[in-house]
């Protein structure tokens, strides 16, 4: 396989025309401080060793890759492999990044961390590391998401975090992000903002990618051990895009490996009720970076819609925008019904309850596997487990719990 050099973002956080630092002046010094602290940490062997040790002993890495043989046999095409991020401590990939950022917060002497959350997975991961490192933790969560993800709200509270309901705008992830930014700008000297996805102002998209890239790096060694070669395609769901970047990024130089990001088509792209910013959005500026956004003709951000709270975001990480424009990655969309069917298929055929987010990636594998040869390999990032989605699935599928 051919490897090509890829060294984005540039010094100011740009991935081509995307990314950057589009924030009010009040936040610029804090971002500069963060950029410098992260650059120093990256070069510090002790920081890296401690990060690796926590990923191993606390998170439980490396996560295995599992051959979903019954599912693959049922489809009669390519073999589907699942990167089991659902087996991590706290049940999703989000913890990888939180460990890294909490270690950085401690290094910077910040005693208070804040986070935004949609599905609650990032909030739980942030609350977890805050407990682990002895920090005060405040999590902003849209009141609509609090309703949808009650179990995760309880978990955050058990872990000692304050969960602040956000009542503005659409009361979902984007509004939680606005509110967390406001908190940060008000308490900037004492507070570290743990952003959960590869969006936001530089250095966040780069830093979160770096912390999540452990996923893809493990796959690079695991796949040849399992099958003697790398997969034909890597598939991951994309909301903000952190699990997708985490598994894609180490594969970018491997030009023969297709990278497929799966956005949430909600009720269907044609209905306008979806969360597919790369598939159906336009470039613009939101939350500190330039990227593809769901917006109206006046440049107002429109609400995203998805059965999965974690994909319910009207933007996407700027590196995905760049990977789309350059053609290195492809982006498709899976609607709520397809995701639900994939959810049930994985439960019944493999005994794995996936997060509704991850079920979008599984659904796309189910869609394309039958048209591929039996020795084809699809590697799906199973980014989280679905316990948190019981109520949503029961409601949508007419099951009584």
């Amino acid at each position, binding site marked *: 396989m051919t490897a090509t050099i890829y060294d984005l973002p540039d010094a*100011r956080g740009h991935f081509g025309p995307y990314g*950057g*630092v*589009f*924030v*009010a*002046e*009040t936040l*610029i*010094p*804090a971002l500069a401080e963060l950029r410098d602290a992260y650059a120093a940490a990256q070069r510090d062997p002790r920081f890296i060793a401690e990060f690796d040790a926590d990923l191993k002993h606390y998170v439980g890495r490396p996560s295995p890759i599992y051959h979903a043989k019954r599912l693959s046999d049922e489809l009669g095409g390519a073999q589907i492999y699942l990167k089991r991020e659902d087996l991590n401590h706290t049940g999703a990939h989000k913890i990888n990044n939180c460990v890294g950022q909490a270690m950085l917060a401690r290094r910077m002497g910040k005693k208070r961390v804040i986070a935004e959350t949609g599905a609650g997975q990032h909030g739980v991961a942030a609350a977890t590391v805050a407990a682990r490192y002895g920090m005060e933790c405040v999590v902003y969560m849209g009141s609509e998401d609090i309703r949808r993800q009650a179990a995760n709200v309880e978990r955050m509270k058990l872990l000692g975090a304050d969960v602040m309901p956000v009542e*503005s*705008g659409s009361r979902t992830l*984007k*509004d939680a992000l*606005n509110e967390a*930014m*406001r908190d940060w*700008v*008000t*308490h*900037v*000297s004492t507070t570290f903002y743990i952003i959960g996805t590869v969006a936001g102002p530089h250095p966040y998209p780069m830093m979160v990618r770096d912390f999540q890239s452990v996923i893809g790096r493990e796959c690079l060694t695991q796949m040849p051990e399992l099958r003697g070669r790398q997969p034909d395609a890597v598939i991951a769901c994309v909301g903000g895009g952190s699990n997708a970047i985490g598994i894609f990024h180490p594969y970018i130089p491997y030009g023969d490996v297709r990278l497929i990001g799966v956005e949430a088509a909600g009720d269907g792209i044609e209905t306008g009720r979806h969360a597919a910013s790369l598939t159906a959005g*336009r*470039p*613009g*500026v*939101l*939350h*500190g970076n330039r990227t593809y*956004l769901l*917006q109206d*003709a*006046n*440049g*107002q*951000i*429109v609400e995203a819609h998805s059965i999965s709270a974690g994909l319910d975001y009207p933007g996407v990480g700027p590196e995905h925008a760049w990977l789309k424009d350059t053609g290195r990655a492809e982006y498709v969309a899976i609607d709520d019904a397809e995701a639900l069917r994939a959810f049930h298929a994985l439960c019944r055929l493999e005994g794995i309850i996936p997060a509704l987010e991850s079920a979008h990636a599984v659904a796309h594998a189910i869609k394309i596997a039958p048209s591929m040869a039996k020795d084809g390999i699809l590697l799906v990032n199973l980014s989280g487990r679905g316990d948190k989605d019981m109520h949503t699935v029961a409601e949508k599928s007419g099951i009584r719990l």
Partner: protein
Amino acid sequence: MSKIQATFERLQAQGRKALIPFIAAGDPDPALTVPLMHALVEAGADIIELGVPFSDPMADGPTIQRASERALKKGVSLRRTLEMAANFRADNNETPVVLMGYANPIEAMGVDAFAAAAFDAGVDGVLAVDYPPEESADFARAMRANALDPIFLLAPTSTEARVALVAKLASGYVYYVSLEGVTGSGDLDVAAVARRVPEIHAAVGVPVGVGFGIRDARTAGAIARFANAVIVGSRIIEEIEQSQPGEVCARVKRLVAELRRGMDESGQSR
């Protein structure tokens, strides 16, 4: 000479400071915005900051966010805001109007198309909160090509290097954010602001307006002793929120006149 520069020069000759009230276009109702702008001028406003409603006003506190949401509900976005500025300009050819908002509505229209439209509407300056100087090359160029002043923010945490960066791009005035936080938050430390503003003024070479946290005539007066302009936003929006529809202009006028008095009296007592 830009209208903003002319305003500051005239005030300086009179030994007075500029009062810059902020209102959100379309709040509480699109029909009230232009009358409200005239009322602001009658009460003693020298420059008007007209907020462009945005769905995600990240740098604003709850008060201005609510104003933005009310305006958006009534269908006011960037184009309607420009129409309102033009309507105001039809009856007032002196008072500078500065649009204050976020980058995305501007980018959705296209930076060049926006700059041309703003010029046509009689707008004098634009502050895009999430365009810091390092991301503003295109924006500042388009502004200048259309005789508009690009207004930038500076904060207590801004380094000397950043002040220098703003100095290169800014014209009209710079907006000094007096405290860490969003609009409408906390109490400001007048003494700390008094130490910093003269340094910034010397470095940027254009007038310095101070905003965030100015809620009464006394504070406005204290700030006016050392700043070139006093910017008041959230307090005015609160007054609008507390008013019945029929009394909005009168109540805002009373509030702004009070701020004006606070500033002018503090100038005389020096």
